[in-house]
């Protein structure tokens, strides 16, 4: 079947702090891991600073901002582009205050690699002092955690160490792979400590000569020597330039790791990958099955993946990731990605890089709903529209969907679209700057302006060819299409920044979520084994109610069904299916069934609203287990549809039988005495808000009759061993007592119950369109924040409470429970009912209480007359309901009588509404509320407005204060 996910609703805009972390390629895991061990939380802080490299003349100085984010120290230049670094604190070996001329506060930091950087703190003196003391504390903590010692072992795993320490780079073979003798050398010299990918054994793709590996290596070696490496790399403009030129194959893996920040994860969790594999050894899941299918289909042309070594490495990495993130599991395209990465990286490195990719760089791309991909498709389309309107219009006229082509590009980062060597270049840049992801594609659009997919394919294939084959200048001829592509993308689309993409994502997020949700709704409905007697639209309404309930009370995570014999008929294993628990069910039912919610009509002179609460009663629990036909303690969408079908289309007899079965716990066709009592309680529960006492009378008559008939039938049942005296047949309360026929007879003896079963029960289930649920507010800025704080549920509640109080003070406050059935009140209390449901009457009631009083008298009269019979009946049924001396004591359930008699005067129980749970702010969607245009409401509106703006101002002030206050902390 299908799973229904509300995960998309839970999206939260990243906080500023998270954005900063992302900017510095730090994932949340780095922090959580660190803070778990930390004894006290170390404050974060940022400060203005000027960075200069310790070595004279190599790089300029850059002004920027220094961030202390334990366990890292990070810096970025003011333009957020030129220079940045992310140093784990533990790689800082030495911090010295420099003796400089007065007024200058400078620190010299020496890193593990012997590199020296100087930061000049340009903030005010006290700020700088504070920063230094915080830095000192943070460093101490790192030392205590023993992280300093970890560095030494860790850097050995990085190829750059070998590169830099080896005196002569000429032992790098041009073909990028080591000769066998060298392999031995490397093995002995470095104890093969550094991590590398399959490429070391199976060669890297591409011709090393053409790629000019040797000169690239040389350039990088120089850079790494001066600017630190692996954990301590400083990224100056030169670094970016080198990346754009292309990474040398042997260094590529490490640079990916460093630039994406996955190296910090690997550093923070040593051994995690191995452990994960060991712990989950032999486990299988849908993901592992899917992975098996694709193992041989990942870059099959690469030699490494024609060998067992490559295949099993790929298997381990993909499986490890699916164990780490079971919700995401495995998505096709990840295999291609992982396979490509594995050429350059070790398994462990690949694993962490995948983590960073799926979690941070490509959020939601590979999730089961693929919302990230869809979202970015939309963003991409809009960017094309903005930047290349001609192409966009052209596509529009010929009805070409861009996403048809671009989807695979996005998902596999071009790896399977372009020849490998070029794809890796794209990947290089992708890790360097996330913007490029969009830029690259952009440009591809330029090249192609009519023919579509085939053209694209041909174009990709021609990337290696000369862009200007007819040019006379040999140097121009040497420029390949690919270089041109990169050039154009960097030059012309550098306007597209990360922020822009973020903004676009924000814009389209709700649209995408909406379309995904409506798709999954359609497919859930389609996947139902049977619609029963519902139409598709009705099933849709059931789904909506279920979905809403799931949003508010999330169900337990999807569990695999236990091996059962129920589904063996097709020989297919059942797919995981969303099932809801009791709490969610209660909420669901409250949406669907009128008696499963407590609705209070509150009038306080300012507004009239309906407060809705989820009712809890044994009856609902019973229904839950009654519908749980497969006995899993949880209901699926199908169960709900079938369950509702079982009651919504019933006629009189079917309803009676349904109700009977519902209370017949052991399904033996008999109700026990206890069950008769619970059944009566169920009646009382359903009728609890009915006006007047007709229903109450009916239930008591039912009980009298039931026990009378039951007792009468009893002797015959026990007739076999009638040694006991018959006149007072006592039967244990848990033995079979009343069968369906008797029950039916008893029910039909009463007109009210009869009509309840004939129509009202089925009609109390109502499928009504729900109001559109709001997505989490994703607007940003002060205004958005303010609005979201104002519009929260709690504030709404506060407002309601407030108006209630005023209403009380003015004497116009009243609370009325809305009846679930609201039918038979007409028989005895036609006026009372009128007053509830028609606006004209209601207003008159809320103003003068005269008519209310009159009614109240009537009600009292009626109540007292019926209470006599009730008393009489109640006596024999000793335990369940205590015999009431007066009409006001049937108190397991609030009595309609009480409601009615105090209708006009009732003092509202203090704060009853404030206890309301989150669910209850559905005040607008009442069924019969076409009446809100009376004066009273106008007053309320006026009041609302005034009130709102007042709050806004106050909050604005507060927000302002906070913003200025923060840095001082």
């Amino acid at each position: 079947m299908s799973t229904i996910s509300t995960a998309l609703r839970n999206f939260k805009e990243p906080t500023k702090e998270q954005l900063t972390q992302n900017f510095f390629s730090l994932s949340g895991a780095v922090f959580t891991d660190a803070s778990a061990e930390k004894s006290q939380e170390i404050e974060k802080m940022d400060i203005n600073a000027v960075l200069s490299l310790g070595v004279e003349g190599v790089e300029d100085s850059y002004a920027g901002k220094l961030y202390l984010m334990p366990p890292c120290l990070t810096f970025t230049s003011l333009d957020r582009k030129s220079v940045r670094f992310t140093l784990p604190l533990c790689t800082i070996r030495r911090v010295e205050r420099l003796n400089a001329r007065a007024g200058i506060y400078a620190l010299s930091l020496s890193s593990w690699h012997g590199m020296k950087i100087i930061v000049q703190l340009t903030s005010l003196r006290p700020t700088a002092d504070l920063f230094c003391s915080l830095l000192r504390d943070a460093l101490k903590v790192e030392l205590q955690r023993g992280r300093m010692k970890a560095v030494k072992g860790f850097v050995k795993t990085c190829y750059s160490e070998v590169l830099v320490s080896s005196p002569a780079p000429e032992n790098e073979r041009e073909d990028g792979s080591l000769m066998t003798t060298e392999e031995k050398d490397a093995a002995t010299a470095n104890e093969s400590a550094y991590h590398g990918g399959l490429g070391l054994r199976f060669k890297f793709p591409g011709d090393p000569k053409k790629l000019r590996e040797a000169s690239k290596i040389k350039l990088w070696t120089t850079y790494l020597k001066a600017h630190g490496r692996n954990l301590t790399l400083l990224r100056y403009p030169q670094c970016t330039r080198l990346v754009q030129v292309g990474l040398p194959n042997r260094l590529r893996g490490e640079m990916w790791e460093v630039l994406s920040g996955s190296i910090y994860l690997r550093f923070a969790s040593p051994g995690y990958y191995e452990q994960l594999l060991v712990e989950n050894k032999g486990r299988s899941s849908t993901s592992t099955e899917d992975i098996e299918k694709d193992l041989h289909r990942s870059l099959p042309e690469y030699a490494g993946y024609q060998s067992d070594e490559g295949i099993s490495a790929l298997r381990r990495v993909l499986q490890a990731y699916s164990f780490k993130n079971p919700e995401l599991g495995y998505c096709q395209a990840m295999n291609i990605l992982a396979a490509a990465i594995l050429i350059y990286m070790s398994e462990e490195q690949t694993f962490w890089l995948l983590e960073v990719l799926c979690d941070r760089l490509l959020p939601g791309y590979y999730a089961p709903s693929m919302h990230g991909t869809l979202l970015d498709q939309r963003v991409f389309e809009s960017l094309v529209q903005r930047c290349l309107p001609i192409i966009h219009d052209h596509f529009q006229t010929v009805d070409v969907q861009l996403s048809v082509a671009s989807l695979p590009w996005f998902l596999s980062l071009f790896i399977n679209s372009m020849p490998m060597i070029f794809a890796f270049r794209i990947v290089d840049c992708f890790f360097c700057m996330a913007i490029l992801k969009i830029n690259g594609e952009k440009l591809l659009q330029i090249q192609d302006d009519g023919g579509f997919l085939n053209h694209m394919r041909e174009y990709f294939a021609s990337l290696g060819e000369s862009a200007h084959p007819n040019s006379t200048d040999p140097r121009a001829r040497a420029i390949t299409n690919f270089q041109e592509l990169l050039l154009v993308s960097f030059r012309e689309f550098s306007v597209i920044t990360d922020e822009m993409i973020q903004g676009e994502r924000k814009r389209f997020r709700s649209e995408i979520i909406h379309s995904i949700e409506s798709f999954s709704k359609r497919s859930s409905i389609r996947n139902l084994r049977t619609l029963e007697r519902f139409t598709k639209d009705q099933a849709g309404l059931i789904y909506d109610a279920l979905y809403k309930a799931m949003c508010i009370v999330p169900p337990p995570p999807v569990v695999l069904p236990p091996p059962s014999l129920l589904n063996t008929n097709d020989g297919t294993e059942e797919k995981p299916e969303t099932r809801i628990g009791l709490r969610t069910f209660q909420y669901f039912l409250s949406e669907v069934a009128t008696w499963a919610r407590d609705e209070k009509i509150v009038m306080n002179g300012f507004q009239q609203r309906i407060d809705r609460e989820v009712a809890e009663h044994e009856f609902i629990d019973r229904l839950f287990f009654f519908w749980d036909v497969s006995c899993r303690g949880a209901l699926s969408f199908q169960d709900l549809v079938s369950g509702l079908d079982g009651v919504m289309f019933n006629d009189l007899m079917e309803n009676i039988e349904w109700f009977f079965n519902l209370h017949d716990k052991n399904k033996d066709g008999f109700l026990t005495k206890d069950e008769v009592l619970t059944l009566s309680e169920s009646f009382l529960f359903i009728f609890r808000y009915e006006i007047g006492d007709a229903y109450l009378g009916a239930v008591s008559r039912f009980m009298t009759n039931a026990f009378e008939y039951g007792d009468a039938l009893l002797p015959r049942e026990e007739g076999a061993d009638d040694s006991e005296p018959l006149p007072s047949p006592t039967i244990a309360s848990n033995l079979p007592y009343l069968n369906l026929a008797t029950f039916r007879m008893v029910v039909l003896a009463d007109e009210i119950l009869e009509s309840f079963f004939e129509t009202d029960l089925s009609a109390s289930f109502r499928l009504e369109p729900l109001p559109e649920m709001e997505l989490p507010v994703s607007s940003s800025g002060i205004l958005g924040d303010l609005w979201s704080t104002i519009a929260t549920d709690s504030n709404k509640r506060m407002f309601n409470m407030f108006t209630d109080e005023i209403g009380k003070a003015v004497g116009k406050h009243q609370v009325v429970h809305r009846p679930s059935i609201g039918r038979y009140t007409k028989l005895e209390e036609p006026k009372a009912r009128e007053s509830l449901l028609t606006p004209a009457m209601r207003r008159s009631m809320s103003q003068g209480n005269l008519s209310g009083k009159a009614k109240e008298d009537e009600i009292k009269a009626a109540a007292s007359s019926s209470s006599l019979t009730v008393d009489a009946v109640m006596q024999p049924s000793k335990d369940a309901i205590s015999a009431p001396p007066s009409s006001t004591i049937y108190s397991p359930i609030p009595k309609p009588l009480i409601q009615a008699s105090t209708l006009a005067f009732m003092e509202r129980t203090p704060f009853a509404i404030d206890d309301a749970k989150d669910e209850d702010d559905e005040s607008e969607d009442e069924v019969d509320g076409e009446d809100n245009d009376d004066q009273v409401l106008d007053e309320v509106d006026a009041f609302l407005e005034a009130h709102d703006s007042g709050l806004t101002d106050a909050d604005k002030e507060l927000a302002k204060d906070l913003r200025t206050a923060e840095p001082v902390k």
Partner: protein
Amino acid sequence: MAEAASGSADKSVQVKLVLLGEAAVGKSSVVLRFVSNEFQANKEPTIGAAFLTQKCRLEDHVLRYEIWDTAGQERFHSLAPMYYRNAQAAVVVYDVTKASSLEKAKSWVKELQRQANPNIVIALAGNKVDLVQSPSSSAHPASSSESEDEADDATATPGETPASSGGEPEGLRQVPREEAQAYATEAGLLFFETSAKTGEGIVELFTEIAKKIPIGTILASTRGGAGRAGANGGRAGTGQEGVNLDENAAKPKDACNC
């Protein structure tokens, strides 16, 4: 033949066809066989969808298949409507060695019948039938070298013919021909068992689809938007020569089958 096809471009009929089915049942291989008469043992999984075209001749019409080959994994499901909208034909593929893939195929059929173009021609194709045939009829000389690893993998792509298949090939079959045939008849589908590896049944599959498509109505409708059809016809898909779907001609052309 290609010349003939483009020469009678005004008669060419575009047929949008979409392939659906569970992951790794061989959708892409079926298309590849049809379009370029090739077979790749380890075809990379399709991401999103792939697009190929093939021209074929049926009686006096030229059909131009625009084939959308979709990704099979469950999570790509939500993208499928994008591809099957306006499709005139669909091939739902399952794997004869995997019972669950037929179930998935059934759900695709259900979805198509409810959601897609109401006149869509649907064909059910049980692929990888070479795995369950006796070696004499199916063995391709090249296959023995590819069959070393994954001998126990029932989900293997055709290239990974288990070495044991020579012994009891029918043992691999999980979907009896009769069962699938019965379902297809009941649901009103065309039905074929195919092998992308040997080419068995592939041309027949597309021929029967072509015959069933109401060419006249498509012609009538595309005449109106002739400008578009002409433009598309201009960029001939794969550059391969077309396949002649007339049955007489089909036989000699597929001589490689046996």
